[in-house]
């Protein structure tokens, strides 16, 4: 059992108390296991009442030599009874016949309502139906037919998967091996997979209005900031491009200036390639697979936090150096003495 936070438990208890019209204390006591459960009045149908049936293996009826005319006639009738297209019905009947090992005509006859269910107890081989037309009267019906009140149970027989589509699920004669008839197999689900609840209870709030409101305010604030900035600060536009006139210094955009700064210390083969591509990208992508520490508590992650902070401080320092402290010939300079050699910033800061 996962621990449920007190506040969540209380809220749920209050809701239950309100719904049942009983005091909260009673519900809480019950939840803590100190009182018998109040009223799931109607007893739920217990799941295990119907044990999986043992379908007796069907012996294929010896020789049903049904002419195709019979099949067609039955098919048409069955389709009419079931109210579904013949092609679909045929496919389903074939599947059923194959699954049960009985001739197609028998299945069709049943579907057309002319014969008792095929899945019924195996007919004694002696009581052979006359080949050809399946006659309801002579078809084996081992057990007395009672009007059933409950639809067929779940559970399919033994090894066979009951991929059965019956056109008339509402009138299953009783006494039929359960699990063979009158049900549709939707899917086979391992009970465990859908019952294992791993999620822990969380304290949640409605997205509308709580989150949407915060988002909306953030969005307005950002729009406002951007418009203000754009009114106050002019984006740079220097002289037209001229490949024959190299400005001094030439600088990359600010987010690459840290790199350019590194480049000026190291051999370009190292700084220009290894640092950004290997460390920068692949290295960053691998962080979750290298950091195996499962905790997210800052106190458990001292090393990781320290390393990232060093990375942040380092890149900030390099970028600021590159933006502000590099002048002519990419040599060190002081912005307050030599001016700023970074055109995006020209309109922002000035030391005059």
């Amino acid at each position, binding site marked *: 059992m996962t621990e449920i936070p007190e506040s969540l438990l209380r809220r749920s208890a209050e809701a239950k108390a309100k719904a049942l019209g009983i005091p909260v204390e009673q519900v809480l006591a019950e939840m803590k296991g100190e009182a018998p459960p109040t009223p799931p009045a109607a007893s739920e149908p217990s799941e295990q009442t119907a044990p999986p049936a043992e379908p007796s293996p069907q012996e294929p009826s010896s020789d049903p030599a049904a002419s195709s005319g019979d099949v067609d006639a039955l098919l048409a009738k069955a389709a009419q009874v079931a109210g579904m297209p013949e092609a679909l019905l045929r496919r389903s009947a074939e599947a059923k016949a194959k699954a049960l090992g009985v001739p197609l005509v028998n299945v069709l006859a049943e579907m057309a309502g002319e014969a008792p269910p095929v899945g019924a107890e195996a007919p004694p081989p002696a009581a052979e139906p006359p080949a050809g037309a399946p006659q309801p009267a002579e078809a084996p019906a081992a057990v007395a037919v009672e009007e059933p009140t409950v639809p067929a149970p779940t559970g399919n027989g033994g090894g066979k998967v009951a991929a059965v589509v019956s056109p008339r699920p509402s009138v299953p004669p009783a006494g039929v091996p359960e699990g063979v008839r009158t049900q549709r197999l939707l899917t086979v689900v391992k009970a465990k997979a859908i019952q294992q609840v791993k999620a822990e209870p969380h304290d949640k709030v409605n*997205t509308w209005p709580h989150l949407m409101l*915060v988002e909306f305010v953030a969005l307005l604030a950002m729009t406002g900031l951007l418009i203000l900035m*754009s009114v106050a600060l002019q984006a740079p536009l220097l002289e037209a*491009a001229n490949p024959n006139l190299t400005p001094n210094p030439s600088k990359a955009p600010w987010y*690459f200036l840290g790199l350019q700064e590194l480049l000026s210390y190291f051999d370009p083969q190292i700084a*220009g390639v290894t640092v950004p591509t290997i460390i920068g990208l692949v290295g960053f*992508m691998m*962080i*979750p697979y290298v950091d195996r520490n499962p905790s997210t508590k800052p106190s458990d992650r001292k090393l990781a936090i320290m390393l*990232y902070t060093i990375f942040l401080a380092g890149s900030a320092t390099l970028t600021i150096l590159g933006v502000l402290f590099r002048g002519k010939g990419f040599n060190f300079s002081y912005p307050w003495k030599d001016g700023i050699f970074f055109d995006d910033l020209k309109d922002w800061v000035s030391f005059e």
Partner: protein
Amino acid sequence: MANGNGKTGLLERVRERTAEAVDRLRGSQFMESVFRPGSPFKKGYADSPRNRSYVIMNNVLYHLHPVKVKRHGVKLSYTLCLGGLSFFLFILLTITGIFLMFYYAPTAERAYVDIQALSTNVAFGSLVRNMHRWGAHLMVLTVFLHMSRVFYHGAYKPPREFNWVVGVVLLLLTLLLSFTGYLLPWDQLALWAVTVGTNMAGFVPVFGDQVKFALLAGVEVTAGTLLRWYVLHVLFLPFIIVIFMAVHFWRVRKDGGISGPL
């Protein structure tokens, strides 16, 4: 006295009429068809837990947001809204960028002149250009800070490892978008920043020259480079980044919503 009474009566009547008209509009077939059940714009919307769920569920926003979120996640102090703001800046950049495209041709003859003309001949041209440029810088910043926020929260730990990887791709794409845009004004700043930047790419071992050639469509920055970077900037990279963003947002939800609380 009688006068005063008449005045309030008139005011009341105006108010009543307006309320009626608004009600009729909100109940009209057209409005009914626009807003799905539960919308606060619909007639008779009442604030209830059920309707609060409907507002999200019956709305295109359901693609982005679940009906409920963890309580700590809506506190501004947790995410600082940085991911959301990165996305919002991207939208602003798309809108302002489309505006700029109306007045800009990516040729060596026209590019620079077009940008110049933007500030003088086009209403709000200068403002929109500034918004686009500062917005791009801000987006690089917010994406970077968002990454740092995620790191400090340890939000890349299972099951969110892969979303971190997607995030790194997004960071790279953001940088590329910004860098390809840098060339487009075709002034000295643009030309030489790009020359310096691509020189760094030229140091890639073994394939350095080829990489540089593919980037520049030549051995140096030329009109061919301008066209290539323009197409990358307005078409290819936005297309790719939108796909990665879709995966990113989808994974945020499938990985169980926002991480934490710490």
